[in-house]
């Protein structure tokens, strides 16, 4: 079977939508972080696929992906650090527990 661009773009789109859905519905901060990772990774897949299929002559999309992975790692590290801080102060990582400031 010949592999077209859609074989890769549709899973990536599903990943992105799952990420958005998870970001909105999850209550656990770690789960929210995982959803965010899903979104960022689907962006990476998009870039690689577009580069590979549409513009095989250059490597711009690949390089963007490399940098995006590094950025995602930095974001996760910082988020985990802050979640640990939150856990220390409320003994929980549930988002319902960190909603003191509203409206």
């Amino acid at each position, binding site marked *: 079977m010949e592999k077209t661009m859609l074989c890769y773009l549709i899973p990536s789109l599903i990943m*992105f939508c799952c*990420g958005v859905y998870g*970001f909105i519905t999850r209550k656990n*901060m770690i789960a*929210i*972080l995982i959803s*965010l990772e899903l*979104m*960022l990774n*689907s*962006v990476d897949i*998009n*870039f690689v696929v*577009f*580069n590979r299929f*549409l*513009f095989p002559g*250059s490597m*711009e*999309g690949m*390089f*963007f992906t490399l*940098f*995006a992975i590094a*950025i995602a790692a*930095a*974001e996760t590290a*910082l*988020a985990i650090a*802050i*979640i640990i*801080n*939150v856990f220390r*102060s*409320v003994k929980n990582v549930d988002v319902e527990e*960190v*909603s*003191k*400031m*509203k*409206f």
Partner: protein
Amino acid sequence: MDYSQFLAMKQEIGLLIVFLLVFLYDTFMPKKALNGTSVFTCVVFAIYTALCFCCCMTDTWATTFSGMYATSPAIAAIKNILNVGALIVLIQSCKWANSDEQVVRRGEFYELLLATLFGMYLMISARHFLLFVIGLESASLPLAAMVAFNKNRYESHEASIKYLLTAVFSSAVFMMGLSFVYALAGSLYYTDIYCAISTQPSAMLVLALAFVLAGMGFKLSLVPFHLWTADVYQGAPTVVTSYLSVISKGSAAFALLVMMVQAFGLVYSQVWEWMLYALIILTITVGNLFAMRQRNMKRFLAFSSVSQAGYIMLGIIAMNATGMASLMYYILVYVFSNLAAFGVISAIENNCGKVDMDDYNGLYRTNPRLSVAMMLAMFSLAGIPPFAGFFSKFFIFTGAIQQGSTAIYVLVLIALINTIISLYYYLLVVKAMFINTENGCVIAPFKSACSERLGLWISVAGILLLGIVSCFYNSLLELCQTYGIF
């Protein structure tokens, strides 16, 4: 490799040197000298700002790294505006950074602040989306750490996690849009994108631009994406809040202007004019309506800054040299007015921990100077004639009207009506300070710290001078007309 091309990045390199000096001072100086970290940082940064004013305005166009990075006197002026704001924030932060709670991590605070400023520089100068994304992230990630800086206060953590999660979400959405742009144009250089999408815009381009605008909307707290703003502003340390509301927002606005004009300028009327149009109306109106019911001063200023972001967007939708000059002038005035307001709030909070509007009742009786500074800031934010805020609003409306279509006239009319609404809530603060005295004076007379007073004097001088002396706007306009919209 030709190393002389680094010379075009004078301002970035200068900032890097300031950063390294502060880092070395903080790491290697003996314990006794560490008390001078704040003064050292302020002095070094002030020298750097002054040097930037002298050297960088005389250059011409320059691009380096095969067009990834560009600078011109107009861009240098934008960076100088940000520098002035950051300098005032640094001066105002001295008292807070030297409090017993923060003193152990004082050095980190300054380093993080300078690192975010560096990221914002890259955002403004980037002419390639990879550099832009790196700048965006290196501006917003250290900011999340700065928001969490009050380690012993719960609100700080809550604000920080809210800020970080929404920031990452928005940059994921933004990068999704970028991947579509990449698929359309085959390159991430602004100029290549500009050439590639000049044909009839496709549905994919509309989707891509919607994603890109949504991502930037989070950074600028435009209305459907503003929900993090009030919580983060309230929970963050007041110094960080003022930095977030002025410098972070200003740099994102400039970067958005550059990106929209340079990469998507040709599809202005087909695609993004209407998106921006809707965003502006929503932002100004909703920001104003929510600001009315806030009692906490920091939340109040958060919603006020949401509606100010709407006015800032008017400078982008104008798409001409006047619009750009008025955008720069607006940000400059906004820097001084908002920092004056936050300076007063932070002085009062540092002294007695009060941040509610009701606590400000009768402030004029006890602390007349602070209340006059606050009054000037509020008048300037609302746009009352003799002060700078009036002229900045006037110019930004003029710039938008020059664009010429009927729809823009309607937009400016809506913005004008909203200015009057905003006058109501800005005057509520003035009323509380000068007229309300029924439950006595809550805040006892106090003498604010020397650094706070210096910061306030600079801000108030800015509010008064920028309104009266016309050469600021004229020189900005001249820059923008000479060098085009970048």
